[in-house]
């Protein structure tokens, strides 16, 4: 089964992550970690007319968490920020091609999605508090 998990594409995104790094002029920066394993993800967002104009992630952790973050940034770049609320756990697992992860490792795969959703809520909190509240409710964050 680990042959399935650690396929070329996961290792490629782990070792050559896309959109990795910091952003100095981000509209939103959000951070979260997984206390169980210490995985950490920061996401930087630049938003233009409601779309994600640029996205960067920074962090450290296992191949699954880092590859998942890398693939998520590719998936969401240039799309509407509010689209984040509709991305489900299943979408992520399908996107990274790991649909049979155990409960301990699923958290690794989903950390970046959680951070992205938190970032979306944070972005709207100042501008449109009502929208932010609704987005938070619809996001299945917790």
């Amino acid at each position: 089964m680990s042959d399935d998990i650690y396929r070329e594409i996961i290792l490629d995104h782990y070792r050559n992550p896309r959109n990795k790094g910091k952003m100095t002029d981000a509209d939103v920066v959000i951070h979260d970690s997984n206390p169980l394993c210490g995985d950490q993800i920061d996401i930087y967002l630049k938003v233009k007319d409601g779309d994600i104009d640029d996205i960067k992630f920074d962090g450290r952790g296992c191949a699954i968490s880092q590859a998942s973050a890398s693939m998520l940034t590719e998936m969401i770049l240039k799309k509407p920020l509010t689209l984040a609320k509709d991305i489900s756990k299943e979408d992520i697992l399908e996107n990274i091609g790991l649909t049979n992860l155990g409960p301990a490792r699923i958290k690794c795969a989903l950390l970046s999605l959680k951070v992205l959703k938190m970032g979306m809520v944070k972005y709207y909190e100042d501008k449109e508090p009502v929208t932010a509240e609704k987005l938070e409710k619809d996001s299945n964050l917790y």
Partner: protein
Amino acid sequence: MQATQIEVNQIRKDFPILLRRINGKPLVYFDNAATTQKPSSVITSISEYYTTYNANIHRAVYQIAEEATNAFETTRDKVSSFINAHSREEIIFTRNTTESINLVAYSWGRKNVGRGDTIILSELEHHSNIVPWQILCQERGAQIKYLTIDQDGNLDLSELESCTSNNNVKLISLSHMSNAIGNIIPIKYIVKIAHSFGIPIFVDGAQSVPHLKTDVTDIDCDFLAFSGHKMLGPTGVGVLYAKKKILEEMNPFIGGGDMIKEVHKYETSYNDLPHKFEGGTPNIADVIGFGKALDYLNKIGIENIRRHEIELTKYALEEMSNLKNIQLYGSPDPYQRGGIISFNLGDIHPHDLATILNEEAIAIRSGHHCAQVLMEKLEVPATSRASFYIYNTIEEINIFINALHKAMRLFRL
């Protein structure tokens, strides 16, 4: 070598879980620093208590209550002699090492630590020997100072004297064996220095007591804490040892039944030691089970256990150091460390490695091992950790090494 091997094969028969297969392969349990497996004698004793003499202890006069009280209190005697305490009154049952440390931070700390005082810890500590002292220091306006370690994880003892003499130090609290990298500290020497400045010393023995002969009379430490479940016993039983004089001067921890002598409307007199610190119905069944675990350890002999673990550690370190891209943490000398090996393999994250090893039915730990201060010092976010006990074998280490090769192949290392 051969003699130990035969003995281990006998020992393995006493642990039913070792028959378990994962993914069709026999379980290789290398997470003994987290918790150990339990022999049949321990497992049976718990169900025997519930089946034949379940009753609350200490006050009832009927027969099964007396039997329960006797079984419970017999464990206290066994603990007392296992660590060579002066008396059974110095043995307090808690839930675990963490609770034992918190008990002292609360009951002793609040009375003895004040504004401007210092508590000395080391960079090797488990979170449970950091956080209770942080809580105490924040409450009392005191501070924590850390003894530093070198790249092999050895304590820099040159700082010890200057540290203890300068800073209004009220307590030194150190783990005898690091749970994350296995290093053993020269505890007897440190106690001697501490006492020469009149400072009491708390020993976190969670990792050392199950593996090293621990004689509190010889070490002369003021406090010692450890957990039954890391030494073949059930979860939910911890021990706090403290010198009688200190316990007598300490306030109670948890108020309630069993810890009192007389209760009146507005005042209470407390029970004698050790009951003063054991409020409420204790974990009777598991304390009885822990007694059986101590019987088992005594039968094997703690020195034999130590010898066996040195052999395993030596072999594992030799084999692992041949691997390309391996980073081993802790002392390279198997005599200066316990059977705990912390490592990283190339750029494979420990969680990925643990996932790959799990498919070979090998249970290792991955992460920061509740020692983030140490991880920061070593400049790694996480390590993988294999830790051994009496039932582990050289064959299992070979299986483990093969699995590490498999992981390297998967990650194209």
